[in-house]
């Protein structure tokens, strides 16, 4: 997988559970276990991030690049006061004294919209609601004014109203600070509404990446296309059947040499089972990895063939469906 992110931009990474979104984030954050095999390169503002990791760089992660985790209920240490958890970053990276760091922590809580920050710094995580905890986590991540914030499903564990407020907060902070963000989510609606670019992951690969608008309006990869179609739409009559993707994601242990999505794909042809499709348009504004991209003549032909036969090359039974 290859992607670039400009300063101040927000990249969305979407995909099902197990598609490799979080592993990507952890690889960027140098959080993978020691046993992980890593290759490839990450360049951050011209610096090779893996060389920084090898050199034991102390003030890179947490200062220039930080991360917010999915579950605010578990990502705060239950036995430390919220203020201390924010302050320790400032003390370690920026060398603040205890008092100055606590003062800065209070200010940070205020910036992320925590009411009564002076009281909250002295409270333990269990005394706060989920939404407030996620704000504390965000304050913690923002403490050293990072250039890049990776948010791994930051709103999955909080309820819908809190979700919107957290996303609004992240948006405004990003704009204020010119910070770049990677937003990992499985919520296509969130990706569509918030991100400049979106990358779709499937079975550990980016199968399609482009600007948000292009991706949703002119999807090329059948997986993206199917995902977009499966979003419930408000103009549909109520109780309309959703359009799910048949099957389940592949096992990634020893996968066959073929397009990983082929068994579930309505466009699948013989060549999809023979080789892994290369990524087209790398480095350009729209890249995708498919032999028979959707919404192209090749794709339409493949789909028409499969519909006529009633079965795809991978053996998936399909019936004719009205396309939009």
């Amino acid at each position, binding site marked *: 997988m290859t992607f670039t992110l400009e300063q101040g931009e927000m990249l969305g990474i979407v995909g099902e559970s197990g598609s490799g979104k979080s592993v990507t984030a952890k690889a960027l*954050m140098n959080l993978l276990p020691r046993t992980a095999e890593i290759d490839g390169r990450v360049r951050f503002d011209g610096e090779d991030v893996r060389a920084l990791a090898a050199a034991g760089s102390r003030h890179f992660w*947490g200062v220039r690049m930080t991360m917010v*985790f999915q579950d605010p209920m578990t990502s705060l*240490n*239950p036995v430390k006061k919220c203020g201390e958890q924010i302050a320790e970053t400032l003390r370690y990276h920026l060398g603040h004294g205890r008092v100055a760091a606590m003062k800065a922590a209070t200010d940070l809580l205020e910036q992320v919209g925590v009411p009564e920050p002076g009281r909250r710094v002295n409270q333990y995580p269990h005394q706060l609601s989920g939404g407030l905890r996620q704000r504390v986590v965000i304050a913690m991540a923002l403490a050293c004014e990072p250039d890049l914030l990776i948010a791994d499903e930051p709103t999955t564990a909080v309820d819908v109203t809190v979700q919107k407020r957290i996303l609004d907060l992240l948006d405004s902070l990003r704009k204020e600070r010119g910070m770049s963000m990677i937003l990992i989510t499985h919520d296509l609606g969130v990706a569509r509404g918030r991100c400049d670019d979106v990358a779709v992951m499937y079975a550990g690969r980016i199968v399609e990446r482009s600007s948000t608008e292009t991706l949703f309006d002119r999807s090329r990869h059948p997986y993206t296309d199917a995902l977009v179609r499966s979003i419930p739409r408000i103009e549909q009559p109520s109780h309309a059947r959703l359009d799910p993707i048949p099957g389940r994601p592949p096992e990634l242990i020893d996968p066959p040499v073929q397009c990983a999505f082929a068994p579930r794909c309505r466009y699948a042809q013989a060549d999809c089972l023979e080789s892994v499709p290369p990524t087209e348009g790398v480095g350009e504004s729209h890249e995708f990895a498919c032999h028979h991209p959707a919404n192209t003549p090749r794709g339409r032909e493949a789909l028409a063939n499969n519909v006529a036969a009633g079965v795809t090359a991978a053996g998936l039974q399909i019936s004719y469906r009205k396309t939009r």
Partner: protein
Amino acid sequence: MRSLVLSRLAQLVLVLLAVTFLAFSAMNVLGDPLFNIVGPLAELDCDAVSRGEIASTSSSLDATRTDCEIVAEAKAEFRLDEPLMKRYVLWLTDSARGDFGTSFASEGVPVSDILKEKFPASIKLMIYAEVIALGLAIPLGVYGAYRANRRPDRILSVVSFGALAIPNFALGVVLLYVFGLKAGIFPSSYDSSSFRTELTSLFLPALTLGSGLAAGYQRLLRTDLVTTLQEDFVHMARAKGMTDRHIMFRHALRPSLFSVITVFGIQTGALIGGALVVEQIYLIPGVGRELVTAVVRDDFPVVLAGVTIIATAFVVINFAVDLLYGWLDPRVRAKS
């Protein structure tokens, strides 16, 4: 907090009543206190003597009368004519005032004096053993978790199980022989003349007593730490760029201490039992040796007082452990 203290006090009272009553009645039913005080004279049928019916086989009636006076005196002093329950209640009220009576064996010596003399050495030994145990177990537990499932951890695991498997008496004898008698690094007998001599002369006994404890604590801490290190907040701390050392000691250690302190409390009982053996091997004039002697001689007041104090210590230490839970985890504090 107040309700916790009150409920613990109630628990302490209940435990003490149960333990002392059991010990008191067992000793009175299974043994004959009179025999332990006056010896064979206890066999004398003094009712018959007072009626002038039996003359002693070996001495005159007068001498036998004197013997009976001794028996009567002993019965009066130790209230042996009273029913069991009443004697228990009398003992209870006396000991609540700190008066544990006098020893049967060493005549007229108050039990509290004996205990005051014997307890310090034992307490020092036990504290020393715990200090050694925790001093070894915490760094080694942290190191084992840090290198989990790799060679250092595996070696530590083998060593721990070894230490757990060796009984105190075997380890005690070996250490005494090798480091005390052969190498002469440590004195082989207890010397309380100064803090320094005490520290060196109690080192081998404390190590004997503490090594098994250390091994148990190390295993528990290592396992709990490995679990804690997989928590999200540890990943979060790592994402904040905190060092391994900081994460280990400032984030992971405290929430991982629960099992260790729980076992710390429960092990107090085993520690007292272990101290008894170790005191025998190293000839430390502690309460363990005193109690063994007292049990063998059926010296009831001494045994009862020892049991009472040990039971109290057990309950108090476990209460302290409960307070520690609250200190370790604010969520526990919120509930109590």
